[in-house]
């Protein structure tokens, strides 16, 4: 026997980097199970990290299961698009259609994407050259501000960022932290008087026919102006059409449940499998996580500031807090707005208005992702 023990015993190949990643995987699984932090995502991601970083496991090597899943589902953009069908089938755009003006709040809250992109590019190749961030990396990191995991995966993969795994984990992790990140910024930018503005709970009813036409019109408008957003908006609105058309309930339920669940499992474990020690343990990863908070904060700030402008323009009828829900973290940020509104006035129910801005943010984040995909190749 001329075989060294190190060739088949995993623990003999364990170094501090791999051990750190095993701990990171364990922490994510712990947060998912014990603290109920995005368990649907963190448990598969944590498990993927554990499996990918076991020495000699071979899962990430060429022909290994994670390499195959990555090629089939991430590099081809298949998984994020399939998830979008499920999301589209789950979202009721009713609150948005009843209050169409909320679309502007969704647009404003995308400033986090572009503002963060600018800051990251300053730190990287744009000016300071402190960190290894190219124009494409900066755009991919900025897209964390879309508060939307599938959009983050899609954009960072299409742009070919080397930090795709860290970006995706940051995007998903911060969605769970929306109730912690948003309230201080909302309170900082508004007065108690502004937060107390009551808005009517009932709105003009919307026809079911409008709900059916809406996804088709949206695909046409977004696709014809920002064609790079067509795959994302197309699959999102396809799912919504299944939901609203009323004749394919079976398909709608399958998209909401089986398709979304199976793809979430595959996507989660594959993203975890992308987080191997040699690619993840870099100073840039820490900056990416810091920039994720910056992106969410800028999103919130920009949404609230446009909310304040609307408050003044409407003769103090619009509560500026609902601008914070323009971030597409659905439905967490709408709930945060409702809670902050209730704190200012226990009779103040902003949920439906915030849900309108929140679903508008979902569309806006996809458009912003498409805008990035369109503009970066022009300048980079």
């Amino acid at each position: 026997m001329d075989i060294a023990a190190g060739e088949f015993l995993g623990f003999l190949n364990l170094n501090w980097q791999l051990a750190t990643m095993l701990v990171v995987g364990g922490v994510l699984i712990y947060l998912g199970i014990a603290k109920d932090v995005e368990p649907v995502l963190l448990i598969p991601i944590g498990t993927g990290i554990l499996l990918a970083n076991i020495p000699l496991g071979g899962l990430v090597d060429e022909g290994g299961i994670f390499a195959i899943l990555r090629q089939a589902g991430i590099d081809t953009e298949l998984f994020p698009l399939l998830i979008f069908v499920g999301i589209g089938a789950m979202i009721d755009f009713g609150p948005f259609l009843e209050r169409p003006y909320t679309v502007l709040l969704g647009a404003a809250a995308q400033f986090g994407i572009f503002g963060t992109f600018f800051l990251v590019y300053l730190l990287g190749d744009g000016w300071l050259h402190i960190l290894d961030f190219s124009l494409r990396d900066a755009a991919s990191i900025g897209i964390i501000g879309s508060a939307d995991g599938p959009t983050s995966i899609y954009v960072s993969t299409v742009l070919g960022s080397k930090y795709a795994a860290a970006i995706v984990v940051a995007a998903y992790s911060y969605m769970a932290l929306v109730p912690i990140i948003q309230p201080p910024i909302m309170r900082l930018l508004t007065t108690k008087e502004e937060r107390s503005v009551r808005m009517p709970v009932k709105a003009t009813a919307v026809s079911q026919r409008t709900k059916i036409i809406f996804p088709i019109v949206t695909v046409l408008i977004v696709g014809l102006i920002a064609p790079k957003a067509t795959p994302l908006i197309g699959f999102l609105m396809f799912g919504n059409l299944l939901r609203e058309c009323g004749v394919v309930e079976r398909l709608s339920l399958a998209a909401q449940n089986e398709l979304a669940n199976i793809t979430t499992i595959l996507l989660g474990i594959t993203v975890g499998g992308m987080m191997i020690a040699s690619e993840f343990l870099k100073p840039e990863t820490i900056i990416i996580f810091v920039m994720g908070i910056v992106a969410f904060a800028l999103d919130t700030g920009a949404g609230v500031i446009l909310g304040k402008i609307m408050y003044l323009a409407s003769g103090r009828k619009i509560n500026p807090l609902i601008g914070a829900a323009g971030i597409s973290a659905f439905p967490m940020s709408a709930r945060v707005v409702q809670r902050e509104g209730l704190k200012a006035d226990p009779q103040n129910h902003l949920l439906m208005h915030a849900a309108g801005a929140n679903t508008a943010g979902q569309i806006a984040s996809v458009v912003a992702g498409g805008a990035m995909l369109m503009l970066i190749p022009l300048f980079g």
Partner: protein
Amino acid sequence: MLDAFWIVLLGMALVFGVLGLLLGAMILLNKLIRPREKD
């Protein structure tokens, strides 16, 4: 650096432009199609 500035400017303009059009379309749809009894 200037490139990044243009990307921010054009990106936000594109987002507001597309969603502004969508807003117009939604207002028009809501005006043209009134809810029926069963809605």
